[in-house]
């Protein structure tokens, strides 16, 4: 298989590749955003825990 032919997608390159690229961007963004949400909430939980521990009893 010729790589040039593959990239040309039978003349549909300007439709097929943007569709795949956009899908990849959205999937990667979703993964990053979910991981970030958990990371931020973990950091915030850590802050709250340390606040509780520092309080004089």
């Amino acid at each position, binding site marked *: 298989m010729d790589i040039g032919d593959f990239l040309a997608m039978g003349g*549909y390159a300007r439709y097929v590749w*943007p*569709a795949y690229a*956009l899908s990849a961007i*959205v999937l990667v963004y979703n993964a990053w955003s979910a991981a970030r949400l958990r990371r931020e909430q*973990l950091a915030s*939980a850590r802050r*709250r825990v340390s606040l509780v521990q520092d309080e004089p009893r």
Partner: protein
Amino acid sequence: MWTWFHKLSSPPHAYRILGRLAPWFGWPALGLILLGVYWGLVKAPADYQQGEGFRILYVHAPAAWMSMFIYVVMAVAAAIGLIWRMKLAHAAAAACAPVGASFTFLALATGSIWGKPMWGTWWVWDARLTSELILLFLYLGYMALRSSFDDPRRADRASAVLAIVGVINVPIIHYSVEWWTTLHQPASVTRIAKPAIALPMLVPLFIMLAGYQLYFGWLLCRRLQGEILRRERNAGWLQEVA
């Protein structure tokens, strides 16, 4: 059964289970999606009418399916939260919304890119496209409604009602291609009779779909973990995980 149910819905227990489950979704999802992309782009034969252009199917149809599937998951979770006053179910519904919205956007965008060469237009106000656009607005409305409450319990209840009422849109999307005249082709996979798509084209579609499902499972695990942490403001068990 009920003790198991209660144990599962206790935040620390759920947090740990989700953490253990996540990699079992994440890695197979990555593998299946990469395999599906390779199979769909390289190995599947070109369509006799649409040529190579039909390959957009492999990113469009799974995204469209997920956009509806996630909405149903969200509505069911919201209903469970409303009926049994289960905070974890509300958290799951909240975790679904942004993911569902992104898949809906993807379905609309890739559909639009596909429509240009095949139908000659990016967009038409027909039943399928319009009802899918309404689905996007339902997701966005759900998220906006949630963020408009300071009290998470009121946000849970109000947004749950919206999610449940909005579920009526899902069968409308699915049957829109049969009920109304539309440019969109009718379903070719979920027909009761034989699917109207050849097997070598169907296999990569199912691989992609399975990959997207597992990927959603992974996202849900991670987002739900974040939601649990956010909601458990002062719980002592936070000391163990954080």
